[in-house]
């Protein structure tokens, strides 16, 4: 570590942290899940409107550090309009990027690549992951009809 701070807090991330997207609450969401990292105190709520297999609208409300807030905001931007299948692939790619591995099936990440810097800060990986895990758990619960008792990445 030391002084490669700007690698973590890249401009894109700082922009999402200061002006988080997708904060507005959804009326009648199809998918809804809460995530919580009690050790950090981070809390997140992800809600989706799904239409013909695509994410029509999304809301991400997050209380947490810059990394978890930015990651949630970038998630909102990245998956709007995508099919559920594409969303899953993106999420898998993000996980791979964060733990410094290669994804099985690589997809274009665009702005999301800024999250790559987090993998040099192992203790912060769980912050960046929280929104994604909460999203995927929520989708799975929705698909299988099984409730999920809240998500966590701690």
């Amino acid at each position, binding site marked *: *570590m*030391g*002084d*490669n*701070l700007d690698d*973590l*807090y890249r401009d894109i991330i*700082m922009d999402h*942290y*200061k002006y988080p997207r997708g904060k507005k609450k959804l009326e009648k969401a199809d998918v809804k899940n809460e995530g919580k990292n*009690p*050790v*950090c*105190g*981070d*809390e997140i709520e992800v809600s989706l409107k799904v239409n013909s297999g695509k994410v029509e609208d999304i809301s991400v409300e997050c*209380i*947490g*550090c*810059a*990394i978890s807030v930015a990651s949630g905001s970038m998630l909102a931007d990245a998956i709007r309009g995508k099919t559920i299948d594409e969303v899953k692939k993106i999420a898998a790619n993000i996980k791979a990027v964060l733990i410094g591995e290669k994804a099985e099936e690589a997809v274009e990440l665009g702005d999301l690549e800024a999250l790559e810097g987090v993998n040099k*800060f192992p203790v*912060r990986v769980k*912050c960046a992951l929280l929104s994604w895990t909460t999203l995927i758990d929520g989708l799975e619960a929705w698909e299988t009809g099984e409730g999920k008792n809240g998500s966590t990445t701690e």
Partner: protein
Amino acid sequence: MKSENTGGTILREKREATAGFDPEAIMADFPILTRKIGSNKLVYLDNAATTQKPTSVIEALNSYYRVMNANVHRGLHTLAEESTAAFEEARRKTALFIGGVKSEELIITRNATESINIVAASWGRKNIRRGDRIVLTEMEHHANLVPWIALSKETGAELAYIPIDSQGVLDLENIDSIITDNTKIVSLTQMSNVLGTINPVEEIGRIAHAAGAVFLVDGAQSAPHMPVNVKAMDADFYVFSAHKMLGPTGIGFLYGRENILNSMEPFLYGGEMIREVRYDYADWNILPWKFEAGTPNIAGAIGFSPALDYLNSLGMESIRDHEKKLTAYAIERLSEIKGIMIYGPKDIESRGGAVSFTHGEIHPHDLATFLDSRGIAIRAGHHCAQPLVKKLGLNATARASFYIYNTNSDIDDLAAGLAEAWRYFGHG
């Protein structure tokens, strides 16, 4: 400030402090302080989590393994005898350090957490029933919360908490309705690891004993930082960890009043803690070994000896004095910074050197990461006191905590870093 008629005392303390405290010399005794973090020198302000170790402690470990290493107590050969003598000498020294208790009353454990667990499990299971009350305070560390929550769940006993006021000081106004006749134990920290608050343990001990309760004091944060006398506070149990007071990791202590320890069942069973074992029978060794099963952390105990020597040579009064000055300076400097909010008492006499704060909207985790990039090590989070931090209306705080090798210059670095963080995270 104190009134004039205590001037003599103040003067004497000042002289001691000056005599004992040569920051340059002390820093030279701690090899890690020459370390660089990236291109910055290390500014270590995470002492409430664990402290750094002087050369004498590192060398004692080194030399233990190089010339003396052997298992203790059962051996008849020279190495075993030497190891046993050094191990028991560390116990004796520690017993002296906390006010001259008997060696038999001092159990060597893994850490303060285990020490409290021994009391909750061995003393608690035997003495606590449904309808009994366990009294804690709102500022306890998880180590002095979770064992009691588990015991209360197991036994049906109720938990009651002495509240804190807006300054983070215990509010004793309704103490008589909290420490009631059905209270079996009152267990509290002598110094908060979040707020810095020093609690009036003598007073609470008197109230606890008057109610017929047993009295446990968690000294994890106080034993390292101020003179401690277990007898004066009349504690039935006193716990602390070596790693928070210059010593090695993996070593802690449980002081217990002899008659109470004798009345308790052992906590761990195995070698060393027995007197006689048959296939269907076992009885126990005398104190303190009754509570020490298996091969102990021999090197850890022996390595703690020079840590105590180091603290004694500075003098605990002087250490307390040094930290008071640092804490006053830290509160002064941090208060000047826009956005900073400090928690815990502002009166230096009633607090130690753990200073928790928040910095506007900046999340404490981001603050810690930012300061780290400048070489400054602080802690951020709930500090193993989730309920307290929640009670403050927060999810996390940032915390700077001081020890003997810290100086005003460390605090200047911290203040500069915090001011810069304000700009970095877009509030400038």
